[in-house]
């Protein structure tokens, strides 16, 4: 799980061009949107694409998506349980 979280942080930094951040700067339980990493709607679409391309997970349900994108921890948990890649 820790390896997956680290990998996920690296992929997010790369996909969203968060050049000022390192994986160590991103807390596992900090909110991803708004006050946490401060991501917005464009970034949300990038994260959905990241999930699909890298882990074969297609997100279509807003209710489910909001739970998954709460933090790095919730994302990693969902990926571990549902990945097809």
């Amino acid at each position, binding site marked *: 799980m820790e390896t997956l979280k680290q990998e996920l942080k690296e992929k997010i930094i790369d996909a969203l061009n968060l050049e000022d951040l390192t994986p160590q700067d991103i807390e596992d339980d900090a909110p991803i949107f708004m006050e946490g990493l401060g991501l*917005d709607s464009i970034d949300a*679409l*990038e994260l959905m694409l990241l999930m699909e391309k890298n882990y074969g997970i297609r*997100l279509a349900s807003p209710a489910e998506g*909001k739970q998954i994108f709460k933090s790095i921890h919730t994302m990693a948990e969902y990926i571990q349980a549902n990945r097809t890649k």
Partner: protein
Amino acid sequence: MTGERQWSGKTDGAPWMHRALIGLLKVFPLWAMYLLAVLVVPFYMLFNHKGYLAIYHYLRNRQGWGPLKSFLGCYANHFLFSTSFMDRFAAFAGKKFQVDIAHTDLFFELSEKEGGFVMLASHVGNHEMSGYMLGSPNKRMNAIAFPGEKSSIRANRDRIFGDKNIRLISADGMDWLFTLNAALSDGEIVSIHADRLFGSTKFLTANILGADAKLPLGPFNLAVSRDLPVIAAFSVKTGYKSYRGRLVRLDTPEMALLSKKEKLELLSSRYAAELTKTLRESPLQWYNFYEFWD
């Protein structure tokens, strides 16, 4: 990049007014409603002075018109906007329009192929009119609607566009992003305006009519991140009950060799060039009623 200045408007009129307008248009000819606009526009200009000033500055600074011509141009712009607005409701009321679109083959060619594509619209003329001519039985088109739009307008559009395999997605909150993502994953078409900042403050700078302006990053990023083809669509009013549109393919095979940043810059500059061309041809049909240029 992020920008502070963005559109924060809404469509005018209460739902009952929209229903009443549709009712009137079923009884009276469209030109009678245009006459009404002739009288209403001066009051609208007076009370919506922010929108009026934005158009005045656009005509003075970007089109290079003199003060009097710009003032009269503002009136003409608001009148034309009113007629386009009424044309939309006239279509809801069942009236027919002549809409000629150049290069529709670009749309139908991509519709026949596998995978989705992105259509970039603008606030010039009346983009919705081209929707009556386009539409593919093979691929659903998802048109992104601004959250400020009244539900009565969306409901009427849904009713008319349903037959054309066009779905409207309202950009409210975060939910629509999941619908949009699923549509793109299913290889559908997404139509989105690319000349107005809303939702996200991230932008691309492009030269339009000789000055820098902020274009929203989102629509361009949508296409580049997924390597999707991009078509720009423009549709302007040419006369009573007539519109002329054109489609332009913006992506090219050579772009495959470029970095993501370069692709974004190239696509936005090509869109800006086509928008400039359209505004040179139809200067009075610019309906982005806020200070668009830096």
